[in-house]
């Protein structure tokens, strides 16, 4: 599964995109927990989940969104365009 990070999440994790084996993670929130348990840089980036937004296959979702079969999961801060 391709996992993408944007803005300060990208900077804190130190990667824009990576291939990740989701293991038994069923939701985006499960994936966050799996990554955070694996390495401190993820735990630090995901410390304040109120400031993190999720998209699954380029559609806005949330931590409860299922990721089974998804090609792409993205994590980013609240958007600030316009």
């Amino acid at each position, binding site marked *: 599964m391709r996992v993408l990070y*944007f803005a300060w999440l990208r900077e804190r994790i130190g990667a824009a995109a990576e291939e990740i084996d989701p293991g038994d993670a069923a939701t985006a929130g499960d994936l966050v927990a799996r990554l955070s348990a694996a390495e401190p840089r993820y735990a630090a980036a995901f410390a304040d989940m109120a400031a993190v937004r999720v998209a699954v296959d380029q559609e806005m979702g949330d931590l409860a969104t299922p990721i089974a079969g998804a090609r792409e999961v993205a994590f980013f801060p609240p*958007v600030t*365009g*316009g």
Partner: protein
Amino acid sequence: MSVSVQREDFDIAAEMARLTAADRDIGAVVSFTGLVREMTAEGPIAAMELEHYPGMTERALEAIVAEARGRWPLQGVRVIHRYGPLAPGDRIVLVLTASRHRQAAFEAAEFLMDYLKTRAPFWKKQTRGAESRWVDARETDDSAAGRWKG
């Protein structure tokens, strides 16, 4: 093509001419242009970088345009949003709406900007001197988008 996400600047007059050229029923065109403001609460900025999510950004903008077209009788819509390095005074975003009468064009342009600010995946990073900082999302943007619900 109603949506473009691009690094380059845009020409407002040329875009407006293209939007209205084929349709003599258009009686109103509303144009909104967003610019990079130099002064912020934390002081003047020297530069700004706009990051986006290629693919999802275009999809999100197209969905917002489709929603506006469902709500108002529009003859045409054009949205251009830039990304990459920008300087104070640079154009960031263009929204054009065309309709038979002005009310639909005015309201749809405002709706498009309110929704774009809360739904399109863009992130601004401002540089002041040696310091660069990501811009926080504003609650006022959420409440502006919220007034179109219902």
